[in-house]
């Protein structure tokens, strides 16, 4: 009888132990799953953090480089602009000296002729800067204008003077037509075209 009872006891306890082992094994399995999943999720999240930071940094780096390139381009443009301005400033200084040179007479005659042709000849007067000391052959110029325009032309020096570093204003006697061929006016009119030509010359490469 005792043996039978012991056998029953053994069966019940063994069954309980089996169940217990099973519960522990499942718990360990579940624990492993929790750890694996946590690690995977954390790794994924970590990758996202790094990738986002990397993308932000790359965007910031692009901005830094764009700004540097823009700054470089502006510096080059400013340097070019400065050189062009220097060329114009030097030219203006030289133009002031030019009005005292022997070539000035030829220049004035050409400017008078060009202006008179634009007006298409006729009775014209010439306005010069004050203190102009040049002996102009106006009749010769008038003849050349006549030849070009086919219009009888007369040229005379006006009593009126102009404030200019050089050049001339030619106008019809009735003051209906005027061509301003002073150096300043010509510089103003031709500046844009000259800027391009000067830039091409200075910055050939």
């Amino acid at each position: 009888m005792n043996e039978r009872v012991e056998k029953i006891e053994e069966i019940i306890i063994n069954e309980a132990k089996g169940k217990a082992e099973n519960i522990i094994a499942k718990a360990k399995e579940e624990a492993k799953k929790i750890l694996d999943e946590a690690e995977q999720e954390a790794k994924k999240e970590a990758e996202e953090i790094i990738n986002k930071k990397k993308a932000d940094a790359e965007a910031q780096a692009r901005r830094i480089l764009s700004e540097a390139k823009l700054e470089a381009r502006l510096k080059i443009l400013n340097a070019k602009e400065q050189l062009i301005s220097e060329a114009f400033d030097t030219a203006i200084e030289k133009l002031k000296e030019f009005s005292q040179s022997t070539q000035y007479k030829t220049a004035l005659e050409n400017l008078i002729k060009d202006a008179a042709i634009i007006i298409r000849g006729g009775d014209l007067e010439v306005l010069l800067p004050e203190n102009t000391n040049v002996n102009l052959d106006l009749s010769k110029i008038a003849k050349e204008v006549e030849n070009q325009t086919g219009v009888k032309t007369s040229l005379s020096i006006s009593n009126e003077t102009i404030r200019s570093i050089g050049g001339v204003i030619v106008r019809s006697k009735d003051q209906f037509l005027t061509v301003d061929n002073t150096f300043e006016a010509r510089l103003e009119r031709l500046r844009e075209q000259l800027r391009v030509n000067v830039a091409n010359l200075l910055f050939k490469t």
Partner: protein
Amino acid sequence: MANKLIEIISEVETKAKEIISEAEKKAEEIINQAKKEAENIREKVLKDAEIEAEKVWKDILTRAEAEAKKIVEKVEKDIEKLRTEAREQFDEAVKLIMDTITGV
């Protein structure tokens, strides 16, 4: 006799229940411990990621700033070269302006 047997079996069953209950308790501890560890792992991995991300950020920006510095330094040299080359044509440029303005 039969009562005695029932009593014994009842005691054994109580013991068996205790074994199972003990196992369940232990299982709960294992899972709770795993959850704690999981949280620790997560914190460590994320902390490492933050450090790594900062390093990546710093590396990329340091490289970009160095490159930007090179660009600006290069442009200073380019400008010097530009000025030198332009100086060679400067008198010609001034002459071009003068000739155009004076019509000579």
